[in-house]
């Protein structure tokens, strides 16, 4: 018996005690752990949400009012031709360690963002700056050569790597249109006039980093010649935004405390934020109802949980239309990956299929949040000053759909063969695909097969154009219609439909040179009209997010279509339950 007790007590010792979680003024639950804390590499919205707490961009875009406000720069100037921007950084802009924020900090950060060494999804957003793209390509080529030399043994030592880096510094100076006449002035030269450049400057990849400490945490790999910043730097980085990271427990929580050197510290409404990582939505809900968290920004956007909540008529349930569209891509190439002729190359077939989707049923029965039906690609109301041409969008009309299909030579639909819906496996993508399959069968007599794939395999098929119809979504990155429309230009790498229309491409290009914002938006809208008429994709619905917070307790939390928040403006009144 005492041996049993011995075993039990050994096991018991293993179960040692730890500490609890620190308290905070405002607690929210993130739906997943962070993928990056390095602002250059961020691309997930939960990372970007945090980045805005930590780093202050030169200008800040207000996603509720669609205006640019000063950030770390108190003012800025734009040259008449729109090619040169000059930013004047505030005298009282400081890093969390008290150092002044300088133009060099921005140049250093932007150079990092242009290096293939740190390449990330959004690197191309830097290519608006003159010379950035050629600098990126130059460095890529140099690194390739370096790696080759290292392999043969004639290179690949610390000195060679260091001298390549010196050379890179000079090349950057020569090629890239960034300069700092003094510590507080930053001059940016662009490749071409970019009417939404300030929106880009407000985006996470344009955030500054504290040059001195980042440089200290960065070293060159003599084998590859690449620079690498120690990943642990970012969990305790020096910041210039409203907060700094006080404590991080991976997969548990992150505690942010106010950065006392932040230039607008006096206006902050709270001084401690805790972000709890709760991946399981029902658990997050239980925590919210038990009063352990104040705000749930990452609830699932479809299915029974949000549907039940939205029907409950509760003041703390907030539904927000998002700047994101759910749609189906049609492969528009004349031939399919296997060499067969592609029936979807015919616009009438695409329009017919799109017309035979009863979107109301999908948003009611499948996604269950009554999302607004998408009749335009750019979501309505998501972009200030831009009105999508919804009248050109396709609405549910099975009679016309049958007619169109007959015109295209498929009189009874059953001779339209070989189509399948490719989707990444997920409960509601699968149910939507089933619903649409049965609608096409019922209204058109077209039989399609369903092809569910795991995320990675799904991406591979898309890239190889190995599909006929594929589920897709697009979320805007910056508040300009081009964030949606440019994807559909002929040479864009994300144009998965491989749809190509000369007039569309021309209009998008024309918009880039149009100085008048109103006129420009009209040009973009006429481009979108072409897109909607040609139907390279069947638009289904606009995403809706569900947020949970008590408006009586939380003041200053303003939901918007872009999932961007200003947590420093959140005032928490009253006690948690």
């Amino acid at each position, binding site marked *: *018996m005492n*041996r*049993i007790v011995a075993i039990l007590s050994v*096991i*018991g010792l293993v*179960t040692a*005690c*730890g*500490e*609890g*979680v620190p308290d905070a003024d405002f607690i929210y*639950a993130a739906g997943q752990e*962070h*993928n*990056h804390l*390095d602002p250059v590499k961020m*691309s*997930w919205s939960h990372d970007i949400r945090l980045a805005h707490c930590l780093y202050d961009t030169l200008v800040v875009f207000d996603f509720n009012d669609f205006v640019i406000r000063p950030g770390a720069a108190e003012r800025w100037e734009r040259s008449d031709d729109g090619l040169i921007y000059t930013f004047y950084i505030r005298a009282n802009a400081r890093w969390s360690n008290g150092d002044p924020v300088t133009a060099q900090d921005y140049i250093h950060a932007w150079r990092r963002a242009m290096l*293939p*060494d740190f*390449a*990330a*999804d*959004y690197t*191309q957003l830097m290519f608006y700056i003159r010379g950035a793209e050629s600098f990126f*390509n130059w460095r*890529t080529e140099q*690194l390739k050569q370096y790696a080759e030399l290292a392999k043969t043994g004639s290179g690949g030592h610390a000195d060679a790597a260091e001298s390549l880096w010196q050379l890179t510094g000079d090349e950057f100076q020569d090629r890239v249109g960034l300069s700092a006449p003094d510590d507080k002035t930053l001059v940016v030269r662009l490749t071409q006039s970019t009417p939404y450049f300030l929106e880009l400057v407000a985006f996470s990849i344009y955030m500054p980093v504290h040059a001195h400490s980042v440089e200290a945490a960065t*070293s060159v*790999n*003599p084998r590859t010649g690449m620079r*690498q910043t*120690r*990943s*642990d730097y*970012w969990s305790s980085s020096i910041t210039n935004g409203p907060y700094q990271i006080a404590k991080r*427990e991976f*997969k*548990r*929580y992150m505690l942010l405390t106010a950065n006392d050197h932040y230039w607008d510290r006096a206006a902050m409404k709270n001084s401690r934020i805790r972000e*709890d*990582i*709760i*991946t*399981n939505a*029902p*658990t997050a809900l*239980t925590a919210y*109802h*038990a009063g*352990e*968290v104040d705000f749930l920004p990452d609830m699932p956007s479809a299915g029974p949980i949000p549907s039940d909540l939205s029907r409950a008529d509760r003041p703390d349930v907030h539904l927000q239309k998002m700047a994101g569209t759910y749609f189906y891509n049609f492969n528009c190439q004349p031939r399919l990956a296997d060499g067969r002729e592609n029936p979807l190359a015919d616009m009438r077939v695409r329009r017919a299929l799109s017309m035979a989707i009863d979107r109301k049923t999908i948003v009611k029965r499948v996604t269950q949040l009554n999302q607004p039906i998408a009749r335009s690609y750019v979501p309505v109301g998501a972009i200030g000053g831009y009105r999508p041409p919804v009248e050109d969008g396709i609405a549910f009309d099975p009679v016309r759909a049958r007619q169109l299909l007959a015109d295209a030579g498929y009189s009874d639909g059953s001779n339209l063969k070989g189509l399948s819906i490719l989707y990444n496996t997920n409960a509601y993508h699968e149910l939507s695909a089933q619903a649409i399959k049965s609608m096409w069968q019922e209204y058109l007599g077209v039989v399609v097969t369903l092809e569910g794939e*795991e*995320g*990675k*395999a799904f*991406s591979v098929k898309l*890239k190889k154009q190995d599909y006929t119809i594929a589920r897709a979504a697009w979320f805007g990155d910056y508040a300009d219609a081009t964030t949606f429309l440019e*994807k559909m230009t002929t040479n864009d*790498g994300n144009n998965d439909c491989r749809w190509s229309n000369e007039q569309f491409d021309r209009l998008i290009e024309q918009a880039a040179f149009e100085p008048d914002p109103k006129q420009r938006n009209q040009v973009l809208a006429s481009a979108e009209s072409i897109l909607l008429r040609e139907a390279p994709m069947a638009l289904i619905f606009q995403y809706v997010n569900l947020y949970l917070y008590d408006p009586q307790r939380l003041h200053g939390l303003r939901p918007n279509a872009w999932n961007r928040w200003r947590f420093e403006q959140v005032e928490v009144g009253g006690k948690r339950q």
Partner: protein
Amino acid sequence: MLRLIAWRLIQLPLILAIIFVVTFTLVWMIPGNPLDRPDAQRPPPEIEQAMLRQYNLHDPWVFAGSYLQGIFLGSEHYPAPDFGPSLQYQDQRVLQIISAGLPVSVQLGAAALIVALCLGTAAGVIGALWPGSFLDLSSLAMALIGISLPSFVTGSILLVVFAGLLQWFSVVGWGSPQHYVLPAITLGVMPAAYVARFIRLGLADIMSSDYIRTARAKGLSYHHTVFKHALKVAYLPVISFLGPAAAATMTGSFVVEAVFQVPGIGTHFIHGVLHKDQFLILGVVLTYASMLVAFNLIVDIVYAWFDPRIEYAAESR
């Protein structure tokens, strides 16, 4: 005994090498680019190539070389040997992730084992000594429910009732003992049912054996016989079950970790594969494999301690 330990220790690197090769091959066969996201925009090809090069993902041989170098010798940026970066959580090293998560998984697993042993023993003893009684039937029913209900159901029910409605426990956080209770019960119910079954069968059998009758005839008290002599023998099958059970509770807590927001490494096992996070998968698999081998070794030692006949056999060989 020493020979047994030495033999197992010699086996360990060999087993790990085989597991590494198999896992490495399987991981490279998963389709897709670990750095892309199905729902997000894809960068231009040259940026995508640059992204892959940062992590040596452009070539499996270069990757294997740099990975093994990292494990044994460390790399230029990280001189201490480690498992490389995580591709999914790029500001973390795999070693950091494992060293943060493993103690949690082990603690939770250990707590679940305590639950399993306590509940299982109690139910087993009751069942063996008073078969057919109300207590026995109810413990049987509990065991049946424990085995049949998947842990996400048990866990969710416990969570909603005890953390949500009654608020006896906190939903968020990890560290203080109150966070252990619900997940440990959820995870421990299933092995408890097995323990109960082993003890119930074993004890009933032993209680009718000759030496117990002799002990009773010599005047030993009933309780003394049961707890001092019979239970010890009845525990032997439980001990050999403890090895796999410990491995199962410490490594198989994926669902429980998700339901109770426990920051263990079970979830990385699944997510690593879904995201094709090569570094994380290899790191977690190698860690788990070492743990499994270690547990089997510990069980062998404990078994020999409980049942001296095994040690004699080994020595006389």
